[in-house]
């Protein structure tokens, strides 16, 4: 077995979550010899359980596209955008953690507007809970 490219692409939690969900409920799910796929079943179950508690549960491809478009003026690296997407920070302290040298690269006003973009574009789990209670 050879590794051609050990890091061909970064994947967001949402992409991994939807891939694993598809695997679980996929067309071949019934026919698959489950006893042979013990490792896959274990890892996908545990990973889905972990990812369900993260903000990626409420995300979709359109939301991610919109988020990336709105982030363009902030000139963040791909890794930083990915972290913001996966963690959905709500405070300036969290932004400082995810973005390197945020004090030098972003003014306070920009940090506020970044938090605003995150809060408006990315749905939060609390909003989803509220919707469930109302309906």
């Amino acid at each position, binding site marked *: 077995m050879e590794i051609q490219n*050990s890091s061909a692409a970064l*994947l967001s939690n949402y992409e991994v979550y939807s891939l694993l969900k598809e695997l679980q409920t996929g067309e071949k799910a019934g026919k698959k010899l489950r006893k042979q796929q013990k490792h*896959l079943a274990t890892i*996908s179950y*545990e990973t889905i359980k972990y990812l369900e508690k993260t903000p990626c549960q409420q995300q979709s491809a359109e939301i991610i596209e919109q988020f990336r478009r709105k982030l363009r003026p902030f000139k963040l690296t791909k890794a930083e955008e990915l972290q913001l997407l996966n963690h959905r920070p709500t405070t300036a302290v969290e932004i400082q953690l995810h973005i390197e040298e945020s004090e030098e690269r972003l003014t306070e006003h920009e940090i506020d507007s970044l938090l605003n973009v995150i809060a408006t574009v990315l749905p939060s789990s609390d909003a989803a809970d509220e919707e469930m209670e109302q309906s």
Partner: protein
Amino acid sequence: MFILAEMTDVVKVPPWMFHLKLNEAIEQELNKKLANKVVYELGLCIALFDITKLEDSHIFPGDGSSHTKVHFRYVVFRPFVDEIVVGKIKSCSREGVYVSLGFFDDILLSSDSLQHPSRFDETEQLWVWEYFTEDGGSHDLFMDAGEEIRFRVVDETFVDTTPSGPEQQVIEEPINAKEAKKIPYLLTGSISESGLGLLSWWNS
């Protein structure tokens, strides 16, 4: 947290799987081989993402299975250094705090990378952050097991755990043959910055 790795491998499809489409048989074999396993210098493999290229299949004399060289992409868990990750505290010991993500357990926050000042409470067997407020009072913030914790990945260590061949003829101490279990992929983390540590510390 997750990356896509491009790999190639020769996959052996045994005759009893010939009724399946080649793609499905190969997907099953690759997942059987790699899912939930750590590949040295790569990370923890999760699941097959897709197959990019299938070369011709060959049959070798004496073996009824078909062998196919496959180019594929696999989803691998490998947080980059300096990435922020949220996990649950598994246990505490003198060396530090052990954190688990559910699907990945080998994460250690060493005792000198905890918030300053922290101390190890022997009775509770827990680490405690002694937080001093401005007016001179101090709060003892316990790091209980099961609590969610946010940490930064500081280092990753890969250990090759392939078994060694039978070079030694005499097994010296069969009773003490259990050496320290080698961890194939260990993440070292730190919570010494503001914003890191138990989520409950920063959530008000």
